[in-house]
């Protein structure tokens, strides 16, 4: 089991949440104070360095036009971490390749970071959450096709070391593609993709040997997704690589009550408001899901989760908190419930959780909890076969 430290780099210093209708897409940037922002950026990178020192790997992501995430250009964060850290692996999860619309530039950025970090990069590609289509103005009905066309092009660009090639796809046309530099890892850094419901995408990821990651989902759903992944993995006879990753909110403290208080601060993330029209752009979700929506039965995952209490969320595995022993037990329980997984992606900082508590959370997890779960077996093809049977 590999454990990854993650913060979405929030900007929580906003007017009271109940006075705002949304903090995503259209919250005016007048609410952002650049001096506070500067402090936050620097603090968040300090915390990544603490995680690196403590022996954790590091994950970054990006979002746009939102107070929940100041990391608007994850490759820039990666570049900083590639130089400022020395040990941990660096996962970008991910490049919103459907929304950025320039796969070759992404191939270049990733190859450069992989070289600077001497091969510590794990490259994720994401379709992007629904509200991201507004900032990018990507047609929401075509993001899946754009994602996979982009991945195909990047892989081809990374692995073509001879004659330049031309590409004329549905979304990107490029001539004389000849990406310099080559990635440090050969043939290229591990590729990750994410998903929350689309089982076809899960199977596709498995068939390609990509790591499949899912965030903040109840264990029943995660078991379904990981089961589909392992099934497809076997079906395609993949020799290895790949794997599965799950992200809960994580807070570890010396006492359970202290941990609960910390977790309540992290839950700021779950309470972030988004206006209805940003949550379900037309054509982002499949017709069947929208039929359920018209019947009033469909709600986003955070909606469903945040309406429930902390105990329920802990039972579902969406939040993991407590003493190091308790959290280790929660990870192991989740591991068993979903048929095993390989990467624990931990949102350990959110909202107003301050530097001192964040650093303590990271250090205590690394020292007392990580050793208890590190040796959980990776879901190798053999284990996958057993799980499928």
């Amino acid at each position, binding site marked *: 089991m590999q454990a990854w430290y993650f913060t979405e780099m929030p900007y929580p210093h906003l007017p009271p949440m109940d006075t705002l209708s949304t903090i995503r*897409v259209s919250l005016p940037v007048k609410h952002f104070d650049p001096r506070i922002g500067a402090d936050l950026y620097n603090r968040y990178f300090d915390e990544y360095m603490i995680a690196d020192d403590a022996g954790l790997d590091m994950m970054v992501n990006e979002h746009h036009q939102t107070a929940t995430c100041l990391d608007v250009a994850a490759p820039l964060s990666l570049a900083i971490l590639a130089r400022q850290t020395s040990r941990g692996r660096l996962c970008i999860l991910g490049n919103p390749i459907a929304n950025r619309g320039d796969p070759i530039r992404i191939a270049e950025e990733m190859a450069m970071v992989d070289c600077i970090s001497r091969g510590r990069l794990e490259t994720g590609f994401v379709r992007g959450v629904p509200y991201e289509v507004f900032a990018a103005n990507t*047609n929401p*009905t075509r993001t899946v096709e754009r994602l996979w066309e982009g991945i195909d092009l990047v892989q081809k660009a990374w692995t073509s070391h001879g004659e330049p090639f031309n590409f004329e796809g549905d979304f990107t046309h490029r001539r004389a593609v000849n990406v310099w530099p080559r990635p440090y890892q050969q043939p290229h850094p591990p590729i990750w993709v994410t998903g929350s419901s689309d089982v076809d995408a899960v199977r596709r990821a498995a068939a390609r040997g990509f790591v499949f990651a899912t965030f903040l989902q109840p264990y029943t759903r995660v078991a379904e997704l990981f089961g589909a992944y392992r099934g497809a993995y076997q079906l395609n006879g993949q020799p290895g690589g790949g794997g599965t990753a799950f992200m809960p909110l994580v807070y570890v403290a010396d006492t359970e009550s202290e941990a609960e208080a910390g977790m309540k601060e992290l839950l700021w993330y779950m309470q972030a408001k988004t206006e209805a*029209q940003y949550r379900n752009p037309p*054509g982002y979700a499949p017709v069947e899901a*929208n039929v359920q929506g*018209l019947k009033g039965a469909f709600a986003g995952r955070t909606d469903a989760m945040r309406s429930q209490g902390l105990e329920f969320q802990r039972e579902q595995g969406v939040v993991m908190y407590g003493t190091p022993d308790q959290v280790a037990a929660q990870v192991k329980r989740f591991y068993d419930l979903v048929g095993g997984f390989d990467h624990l992606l931990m949102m350990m900082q959110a909202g107003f959780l301050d530097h001192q508590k964040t650093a303590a959370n990271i250090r205590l997890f690394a020292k007392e909890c990580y050793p208890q779960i590190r040796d959980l077996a990776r879901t190798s093809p053999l284990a996958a076969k057993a799980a499928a049977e």
Partner: protein
Amino acid sequence: MEVERFGSGAPMLVLLSEESALELESPFLAELAKTRELIIPQPPGFGRSERPDWVSGPDDIAYMYLDLVERLGLKNIPVLAFSLGAYIAAQMAVKDDAFISQLILAGALGVKTGGPFDRDFMDIWTSLPEKVMAWKWADPGKGRPDLSGKTDEELAIIARNTESFARYCWEPYMHDPKLKRRLHRIRVPALFVWGAQDGFVTPACGKAYAELIPGAKFTSIADAGHYPHLEQPRAFLAAVHAFTG
């Protein structure tokens, strides 16, 4: 492609708006069908029509409809079109208007005459649903579909229509920058009908659109928003009859 044909009288090609689920249930179409045979194709991805991947907008749909007109042997018939349907009709007419006797466009999308920072079309996809209703309807209550008692298949049609509208009109938003340069090719008598309270695409935008078609007339309907035929069916039909004779 799904094509509805009903009513009795001389044929008329009717191209519905993105709200075709509402229109198909409206008294307006029933009234019109008393004196006309209505030929109503559903665009790819609307109703029960398939949506091939290569169809990316009204320009593609226009060619499909021109093939349909040819196949059905339609000649010298009026075309009545609304919103997205009017966008498709304009795309057809600039390519071939020989089969059209009169062109009636209501709340037509497709042409942006303002500059990059001007909002010719209010952004329905980044705005609260209540706000969008208020732009589109003089009486927003009329736009709220009654979903109770609808079957899954009927709801799926509504969901498909919503999705396909975005497929075709997301970017460029509600228009084709090339279209306004081609409108002079339309030589048939044309009438633009606009709801006086259309807050989604204002009557001023409609007038600017009409001016790009030689000889086109413009008329507005009081107490109506973006769908004047649904909000004021009588006044709308009177305007149509006055034009078609």
